[in-house]
């Protein structure tokens, strides 16, 4: 069972197993990777984003600061020129000759290379002195400058920054005019070549490839590291950043750095600052790729770290998942192996957790399975051994039975030979007597064998009833009185008033065998039968003064064909089946049979019977035998497929006064009966007929043809337990071959006497039980040592 179940489970498990393999691992890996990676990714992405933002912000701030610093430098450049011009303006008001002022102004030109022309005018706006790098000095021209913007603005605001103009459409110039401290000091007007700002601008380093440049209020380029751009008089106002700065005005300083295209079309990060004075704009621009290079580098680094983290997470997740899954797989594989019947397989998991506990439980389960399996096997072995023993016993039994049957058969053969040879009347009578004895012995043997067979087939069903034990005691005394007297033994039954609950017939059969045995094996002294109360039981005891049974033989005496040693065996008195029948009957009735013995002193057999309350008991009245012979003139049909049996039966029945019809089947019988035109009084049929027919069917056929419950019984040579059971179930009475003539006669008389009653219900148990019971003077011989 365990194998088939285990195999079935293993088969059921093994087929889906390959499809499922690894799914748990991938699930765990996915889950763990997800758990680890998502926050990592999220934090990494956030880190990268925020660092990008920080960097960008700081970059923009840095650039704005740079722009402001550069603007301050340009502003300082302008302020310096203003200061130098201012010195001249102070000088102009101060006392001094025109020649001294002219010298001072020429000196200024030498000191300030950016100033190309310088003009001083009096308070009325008349030119006093004009000094130029390229032209001859003009002294006292008194040209009217009072309407010039430079004069007007400087007079009003002390200082004037003119618009940037480009000489020859190329070089940027600006006019600076300053009023002297005193009202009558007049003003000084200077032309400044702004190309010189290049010296400042080209020194401002913006990264590697970045640049700083200056545009005027109109967006025209004033200064750029590439002076060519300036000299080409570039208008940068179309550039987005310049346009935005010009329109945004100075008050709105953009918080965000702008990304725009520079004059060469490169993408740059740009920042600007106002140059006050003179109201220009300073731009600082860094190529985007250079500006963001560190950002990209840090992004790359962060991404690499993130990637490394992810890889680490995946690897560790995989390892963790494997660590988790490995014991589960070990469990799975172990369970599969155990399920497949490898019960000595042990699951080895050392995780120290529930899985290890589970593994241990699997192991203990497997161990228990293994143990129970072993137990089962041992039981099977034992049972097989028992069966072998039983078979052996059967063989022994058959050997013994055939031996015991051979003896009388051998004797019969000898006697029949004597009969042929010897024709003397006296001798004839003696030989017939001996043949009779041999036949009787054989009958007894067959009867006993039949009993054993019936008991083994369990066709007997005990019919329990309460009855006084004394009835059995009395019968035993009566039955064995004669036999005891012949051996000069005392036989006494101690009277008992107890009632027992048992099957009286079967219990009597037990006692018959026991008493017969006791008398057979006892040579002197006597046999005492008694009863003792033992609680709710009654113990029937049979004491004898026989030779006793050796202790080592006490169990064996109940075996079939066991015969005690000693002279008793030679007298041919026992068949060795008595105690075997006793034991079986005891088992059937659930009465315990015990034996105790002392060698040389005697034995005691006891039977434990449950006590019963005394009720009114009607002593069965033995019916008065009708003297009239019931057989005379009765028509008896004998059906048997064996012609010898048919002839034997005809002769016997005719000698008893019957009219006889014999046939080999129901068809032949009906044909003869039809000729006679007479219904039979009794049908005796063989159980098994030719062509697979049975006696039941034949009888049934006759009964249906004659439409009457014709009395009938069956005779069979078949003692197979199944046959017995069939017969019992059919309700027919059954005699077993060989049938002693007196038994046949008794059966015949009984049936024909009751012929008046058309229907006769036959109680199977009773019939079989009475069949077991022998005539009182002829109990089943029980062998004993």
């Amino acid at each position, binding site marked *: 069972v365990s194998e088939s179940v285990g195999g079935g489970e293993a088969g059921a498990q093994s087929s889906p197993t390959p499809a499922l393999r690894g799914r748990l691992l991938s699930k765990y890996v996915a889950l763990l990777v997800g758990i680890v990676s998502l926050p990592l990714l999220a934090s990494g992405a956030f880190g990268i984003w925020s660092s990008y933002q920080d960097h960008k912000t700081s970059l923009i701030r840095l650039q704005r600061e740079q722009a402001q610093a550069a603007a301050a430098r340009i502003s300082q450049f302008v302020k310096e020129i203003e200061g130098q011009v201012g010195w001249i303006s102070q000088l102009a008001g101060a006392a001094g000759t025109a*020649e001294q002022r002219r*010298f001072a102004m*020429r*000196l200024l030109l*030498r000191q300030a*290379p*950016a100033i190309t022309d310088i003009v001083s005018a009096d308070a009325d706006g008349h030119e006093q002195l004009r000094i*130029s*790098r*390229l*032209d*001859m*000095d003009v002294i006292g021209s008194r040209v009217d400058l009072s309407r010039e913007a430079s004069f007007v603005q400087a007079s009003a605001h002390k200082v004037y920054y003119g618009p940037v103009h*480009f000489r*020859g*459409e*190329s*070089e940027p110039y600006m006019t600076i005019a300053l009023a002297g401290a005193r009202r009558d000091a007049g003003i000084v007007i200077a032309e400044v*070549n702004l*190309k*010189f700002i290049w010296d400042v601008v080209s020194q401002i380093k913006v990264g590697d490839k970045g640049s700083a440049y200056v545009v005027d209020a109109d967006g025209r380029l004033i200064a750029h590291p590439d*002076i*060519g751009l*300036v*000299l*080409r*008089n570039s208008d940068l106002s179309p550039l987005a950043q310049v346009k935005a700065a010009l329109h945004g005005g100075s008050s709105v300083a953009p918080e965000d750095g702008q990304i725009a295209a520079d004059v060469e079309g490169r993408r740059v990060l740009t920042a600007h600052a106002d140059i006050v004075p003179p109201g220009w704009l300073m731009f600082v621009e860094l190529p985007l790729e250079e500006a963001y290079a560190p950002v990209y580098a840090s992004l790359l680094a962060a991404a690499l770290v993130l990637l490394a983290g992810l890889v680490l997470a995946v690897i560790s997740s995989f390892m963790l998942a494997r660590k988790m899954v490995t014991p589960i797989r070990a469990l799975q594989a172990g369970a599969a192996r155990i399920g497949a019947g490898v019960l000595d397989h042990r699951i080895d998991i050392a995780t120290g957790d529930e899985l290890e506990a589970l593994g241990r439980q699997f192991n203990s389960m497997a161990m228990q399975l293994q143990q129970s399996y072993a137990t089962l096997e041992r039981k099977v072995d034992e049972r097989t051994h028992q069966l072998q023993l039983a078979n052996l016993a059967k063989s022994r039994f058959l050997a013994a039975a055939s031996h015991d049957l051979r003896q009388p058969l051998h004797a019969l053969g000898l006697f029949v030979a004597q009969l042929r040879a010897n024709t003397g009347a006296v001798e004839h009578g003696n030989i017939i007597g001996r043949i009779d004895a041999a036949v009787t012995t054989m009958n007894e043997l067959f009867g006993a064998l039949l009993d054993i067979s019936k008991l083994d087939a369990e066709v007997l069903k005990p019919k329990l009833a309460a009855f006084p034990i004394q009835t059995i005691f009395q019968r035993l005394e009566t039955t064995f009185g004669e036999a005891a007297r012949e051996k000069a033994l005392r036989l006494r039954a101690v009277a008992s008033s107890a009632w027992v609950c048992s099957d009286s017939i079967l219990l009597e059969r037990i006692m018959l065998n026991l008493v017969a045995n006791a008398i057979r094996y006892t040579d002197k002294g006597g046999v005492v039968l008694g009863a003792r109360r033992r609680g709710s039981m009654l113990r029937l005891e049979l004491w004898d003064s026989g030779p006793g049974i050796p202790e080592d033989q006490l169990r064996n005496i109940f075996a079939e064909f066991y015969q005690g040693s000693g002279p008793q065996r030679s007298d041919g008195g026992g068949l060795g089946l008595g105690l075997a029948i006793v034991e079986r009957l005891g088992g059937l009735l659930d009465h315990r049979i015990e034996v105790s013995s002392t060698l040389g002193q005697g034995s005691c057999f006891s039977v434990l019977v449950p006590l019963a309350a005394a009720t009114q008991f009607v002593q069965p009245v033995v019916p008065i035998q009708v003297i009239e012979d019931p057989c005379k003139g009765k028509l008896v049909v004998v059906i048997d497929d064996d012609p010898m049996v048919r002839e034997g039966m005809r002769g016997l029945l005719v000698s008893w006064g019957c009219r006889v019809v014999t046939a080999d089947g129901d068809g032949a019988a009906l044909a003869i009966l039809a000729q006679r035109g007479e219904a039979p009084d009794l049908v005796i049929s063989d159980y098994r007929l030719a062509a697979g027919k049975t006696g039941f069917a034949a009888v049934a056929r006759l009964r249906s043809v004659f439409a009457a419950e014709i009395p009938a019984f069956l005779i069979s040579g078949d003692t197979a337990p199944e046959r017995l059971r069939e017969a019992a179930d059919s309700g027919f009475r059954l005699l077993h071959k060989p049938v002693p003539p007196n038994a046949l006669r008794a059966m015949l008389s009984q049936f024909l006497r009751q012929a008046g009653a058309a229907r006769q219900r036959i109680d199977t148990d009773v019939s079989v039980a009475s069949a077991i019971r022998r005539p009182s003077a002829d109990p089943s011989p029980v062998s004993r040592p």
Partner: protein
Amino acid sequence: MMKRRTFITTVLGGVAAARPLAARAQTRALPVIGFLHSAAPEGAAKNVAAFREGLRQAGYVEGQNVTIEYRWAENQYNRLPALAADLVERRVAVIVTSGATVGPLAVKQATSSIPIVFMIGADPIYAGLVESLNQRRGNVTGGDILQHAARTKASGTAARAGAGSEDRRLLANPENGNIVTEPPVMEAAARRLGLGFQLAKASRERDFEAVFAGLAEQRVGGLVISTDALFNNRIEPLVALAARHAIPTVYFLREFVSAGGLISYGASIIAMQRQGGEYAGRILKGAKPAELPVVQPTKFELVVNVETARTLGLAVPPTLLALADEVIE
């Protein structure tokens, strides 16, 4: 003079012959700059060196990654058109011309595709080389030393610096275009100071002697040497003649004063040559002339040779000394 030229040619040829064959083979693949000069190589060595320096600043070294084809007009300006045509024919990458405006004009006429870098002393717009200084189109760019702009100042200085006679002269080369533009400016300056003015001409070195002898005879109080490739090329003879005839002379280049001339006022020709080299390099790198504005000088230097003044018996005013950018003792 011929001997000296032969010597230089021989030296240059020797250097060329000494180059390894592989390097010479390599030079064939190098870009070629055509260098056209109105004057002669002797006396222009500093200018050429300055040009090479500018070229090196732009990343080019002659013989390593650039070849320069030199064409010298030997101060004979009528040879310039033929030399220019030769360079154009050779399909050089860029033509750099220095000296009289005749040179660049000849090249401009010969090609409208090969970039031209000029280094002149005249007004390039007036000369017809470019339409504007900020240069929005065309294949011509370059630099001038703003002599045309500073000439008034220089003339004034020259007029004032004279001594003795109130007669002032301007020496100009009749083959140079500025023979038209320069004299009126000088004359106006002289008139403003109440001085007399006349033009003196010389187109060949051999004329110098006669011109100076004449000026000395006329007791000229002051002389201005106009800016011209021939004059700039023959600094020492001119200075020597001025000294010999004791004529106070004003120049445009400091190199004259360094050589013993009295006074100079003007921009640096060396700086211009350097600028020309840089522009040539930038054009070799792919820049277009239209992207390169004409460069004008911002620095004008007053150089005074006190020694010469003393020799001439001139009293140099302290204010002039104070204003001078350099005073040579």
